[in-house]
């Protein structure tokens, strides 16, 4: 079922911002079903996951150095071979560029019961390999970061489209009326910036809420304007009472005006958020053991560890879609090792323990069963050296992501790239297909999740996308 929302409905209920349910409680009137666009909605079918954490490895992790094991790269290391380089094709149409094969910098081994291959790049995370569902045959659009990052988040390289989290929130609503339903922790300002968590033409209530910024300290990851920098809480209480009284006088002129009531309610919600959200965002509430699990307190992992722990707390509190970005706002973000592959180790060190900690923590709390964890970048990297140097260029033609938790086949691998790990060849999964599959896991039919704008229905997957049924548990 699509959810067309009329402007009128939006006006009536936007009213309620992200706090409609609580407001309904306040006004002692039960919320009429279907009135509030942010109320939890029934999915199209039974969901396998209720919420999602997307760990965005910005810049493009090298799949051939991490999870896509290709013996041929060791064998042919240093040989010059003709490859269909995506950048060369886009720039000049030229196929068959001569490139020097570069072997992985980290040795591979099989892991766990499932015996999946992984390199030593992520040693801690490797302990959870039996929970992973690898997709080795992902391919996407956009050769540069800007287009590919937008495609990853919004399903389009250039046109202004809603981001995936906005679609999910639009489709499913939120479970915690006192919090935003879609939160992006430490998003990058670059490569599409706010568009990557923007609502575009969907109503504003579906936009992502940014906490902090990419590369910034985790301490900055908070909801904006949550505290008053000047007034004591007693003073603010008195001022809030005054505001209530002023508004009560003013609304007397327009009794039973739903829009004005909505404004008043938005203040009540803000007031409650101000009281409650800081607790939720306060990681010191967690035990030392839990903090240590995420690598908090160790200099290399402290920042990303805090962000991952925050993600778990938000999920636990009912936030539907949480994205955590490991990246920055530059034109060559984090994992973008064009000329210096060994630097991958620095980034891997920063995220490895936090991710392993997050998985362990979700598991021990029973959250992994209905939480989908998605790890990946906007593209992979080439199996050959860039400009005959020591780095690798972008590779949108074939790369690896992994999913874990709600509804995916644990310990499995789907699809494959060619023997060099360059192009996806078997059971190819386009980014549109991945989007369709993730929506499916959340109980949404990507072809039915539509919104009418500019004279026609739009969806996340445009006119594409097929659910990859083989990876469903």
């Amino acid at each position: 079922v699509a959810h067309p929302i009329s402007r009128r409905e939006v006006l009536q209920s936007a009213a309620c911002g992200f706090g409609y349910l609580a407001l309904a409680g306040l006004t002692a009137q039960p919320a009429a079903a279907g009135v509030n666009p942010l109320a939890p909605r029934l999915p199209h079918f039974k969901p396998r996951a209720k919420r999602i954490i997307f760990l965005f490895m910005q810049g493009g992790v090298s799949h051939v150095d991490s999870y896509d094991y290709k013996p041929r790269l060791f064998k042919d290391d240093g040989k010059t071979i003709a490859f269909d380089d995506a950048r060369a094709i886009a720039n000049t149409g030229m196929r068959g560029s001569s490139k020097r094969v570069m072997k992985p910098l980290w040795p591979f081994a099989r892991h766990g019961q499932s015996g999946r291959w992984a390199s030593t790049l992520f040693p801690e995370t490797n302990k959870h390999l039996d929970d992973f569902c690898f997709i080795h045959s992902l391919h996407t659009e956009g050769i540069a970061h800007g287009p590919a990052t937008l495609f990853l988040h919004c399903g389009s390289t250039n046109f202004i489209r809603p981001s995936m989290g906005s679609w999910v929130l639009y489709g499913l609503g939120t479970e915690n009326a006192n919090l935003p339903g879609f939160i992006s922790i430490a998003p990058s300002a670059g490569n599409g910036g706010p568009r990557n968590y923007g609502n575009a033409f969907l109503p504003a209530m579906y936009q992502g809420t940014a906490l902090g910024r990419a590369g910034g300290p985790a301490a900055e990851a908070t909801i904006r304007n949550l505290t008053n920098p000047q007034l004591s809480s007693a003073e603010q209480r008195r001022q809030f009472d005054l505001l209530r009284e002023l508004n009560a006088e003013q609304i007397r002129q327009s009794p039973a005006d739903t829009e004005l009531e909505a404004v008043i309610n938005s203040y009540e919600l803000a007031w409650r958020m101000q009281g409650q959200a800081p607790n939720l965002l306060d990681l010191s509430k967690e035990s030392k053991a839990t903090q240590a699990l995420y690598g908090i307190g160790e200099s290399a992992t402290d920042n990303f560890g805090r962000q991952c722990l925050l993600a778990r707390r938000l999920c636990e509190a009912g936030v539907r879609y949480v994205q955590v970005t490991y990246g920055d706002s530059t034109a060559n973000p984090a994992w973008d090792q064009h000329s210096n592959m060994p630097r991958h180790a620095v980034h891997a060190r920063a995220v490895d323990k936090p991710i392993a900690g997050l998985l362990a923590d979700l598991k021990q709390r029973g959250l992994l069963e209905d939480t989908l964890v998605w790890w990946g970048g906007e593209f992979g990297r080439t199996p050959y050296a860039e400009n005959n140097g020591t780095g690798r260029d972008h590779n949108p033609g074939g790369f690896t992501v992994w999913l874990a938790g709600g509804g995916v086949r644990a310990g499995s691998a789907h699809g494959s790239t060619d023997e060099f790990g360059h192009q996806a060849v078997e059971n190819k999964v386009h980014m549109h297909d991945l989007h369709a599959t993730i929506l499916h896991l959340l109980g949404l039919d990507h072809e039915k999740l539509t919104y009418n704008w500019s004279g026609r229905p739009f969806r996340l997957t445009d006119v594409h996308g097929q659910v990859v049924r083989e990876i469903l548990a």
Partner: protein
Amino acid sequence: MAPRSIPVLFALLVLVNGLQAGGDSRGIDFFEKKIRPVLVEHCSSCHSKDAQAKKKLRGGLLVDSRAALLKGGDSGPAVVPGKAQESLLIKALQYSDEIRMPPKKRLPDSVVADFVTWVNLGAPAPEDSTAKGPASSAGMSVEEGRKFWAYQLPRKAPPPVVQNTAWPGNDVDRFILAQLEARGLRPAPDADRAVLARRLYYDLIGLPPTPEEVDAFVQDSSADAYEKLVDRLLASPAYGERWGRHWLDVARYAESLTLRGFVMKEAWRYRDYVIDSFNADVPFDRFIQEQVAGDLLPAATPAQRGRQLIATTFLVLGNTNLEEQDKKQLRMDVVDEQLETICRAFLAQTIGCACCHDHKFDPIPTRDYYALAGILRNARTLEHANVSRWLEVPLPVGPEREAVLKKHEEAVAALQMRIKAGRSGSAGASPSPAALKKLEDELKKLEASGPKRPMTMTVLEEKEIADTQVHIRGSVHNLGEKVPRGFLQVATYGSKRAMPANESGRRQFAAWLAAADNPLTARVVVNRAWHWLCGAGLVRTTDNFGTTGEQPSHPELLDYLAVQFVEEGWSMKKLVRQIVLSHTYRLSTAASPSPDPENRLYARMNRRRLDAECIRDTVLAVSGQLILDRGGPTFKADLAADYGFRYSEPRRSVYAPVFRNALPQLFEVFDFADPSVTTGRRNVSTVAPQALFLMNHPFILEQARFAAGRILARKDLDEAGRIDRAYRLALGRPPSAAEQRLAQSFLKSQSADSLKAWAMFYQALFGSLDFRYVN
């Protein structure tokens, strides 16, 4: 692999068995053995009538008959009998081109070889006499479209006769009242004069009236007091700032790109051009043409030429991904964006659909899309590189200035020559390194200190003027037939305009957009004005006059205003004046139970929320900090990226740089227009982040403190007098007795620090309902 479909298999069997053989039996055997099973297993789930019935047909291609394969799909014939290497089907199977089939995995070499053999044999297969091509996917035909209201020429009917002849103030009211009377409804009472003043100030200039200005109007008992106020506000330069900003929403105006936060240093000239155009009441048809083709229009003076060049910045403001590596694709992305913007802004048409297929709902065939695209493809918007770049050209200057610039440029050139010669030693004895360094320093200094040519963003005509081809399914790598440049057929009346062979056709396009016999343009403009003044358009979907948009509530009024607008020379000020002078505009917003809860009939005025700019400008006006400087650049020229930019100048909001990665928080939370798409109608949301902003953001706290200091400086007023004034400054009205009591008791309870107490009080006023809404 998709589950195999039994019905398809069955259909193919029937089809094959029930028809006469169309080739020799050896060929047919080959087909039966080697080809048909593969088609059924690997192709039919997306390319068969069965798939079509399930709406799973891809690319318009059917493989369940020979005829269908010869006919092919959207990309043309799939099979050319006897010529395997010219057959798209073979290319797709070989994975040698853009289209690669089956999409999941290339078939084994032996199977592909069978297909090559089969096609080279002449593609023998049982003929399918029943095969009919896929049903036409076209939506409304152009002829049918002509029956839809928006594509018919507007007609100016005489205003209807009304019963209550005393009520109408002008013709607008006769159209409104006639509908009300027809439903047995009566217009609301008139708005209170102070309320009307506040409404008019915000609507015409976007600023609150001072208490003195309200008093002056309320006390002016002359018959034309209201007209005088309207004319004074229309003549104020603040009018252009308010109305220009409306247009900037439509023009998706911004000063940076999301990608890498690139700052467009010269975009402000376009903003000022828009503001100036509204203030000078440039005829709107002229205004349209300048933005689409100003660079090609004749100009009498360098100033006029400059103005027209700046106007074309409009074409360059799209939020483009300059990093796109496929430059063919990027070039077309730019054209698509320009077309989408032009058609939404001026015609309220959603043309984007027709980029890939005939519009499903509106009478816009794909050919029309590429007829227009051909025109814009002849305009160069970007200079391509790894990261492409928009174009900037020098603005023409007067002769005196030109002489100064020339002199400076010659001096620079001469110095550069000397340095070059010195380095190469070609001018006899080489100067010492020290002397050379001195020259270089001199050059640097000269360049830094000398006058600079003003630049503007614009487009240039391509060297080669051409028509373009249909892009099949919107793909730049799959071109179809060539389409002569032209316009939307359904909206074209009168004689055909010929396209010049040596010019892009933008001038003709612009003239067609702004023509009196374009059925859409004038209607779209007057509807926008109505929306901006009344809070809801006569057609509420201001950017969509297609069949999926809403119908006009008062079609005759819309036509009347549109025709009159054209007759009176496309004057926006006259139009605005006519609407605000109507009795309808002056009604109270007080709602009473009504059979028309959405107020489609305008029995009352719509209450409206202050937009982001008005909220900010009013806070600054109340605090006494607002600076009314006009125009000019508003950030430093050396700013490279917009990330983290904060605007702290207390100038009007229209001058806050519109940075796509760094919109002011206040703009973000209060529904400022998305600067990447045409916005004729902003969202109006009510969410908690707005409340948090007003409760805790430093800007509000700081301005409340300024406002407090300002009111406390009024030693001539006692506490009650100050409260009265604060209300009048912030809300445009005096406090009620109850409000006066509330305020006094609050201030008393906080008396230890009166500045702080007043700041807290002002902040509460800024947060109150009557501040945020205009009645």
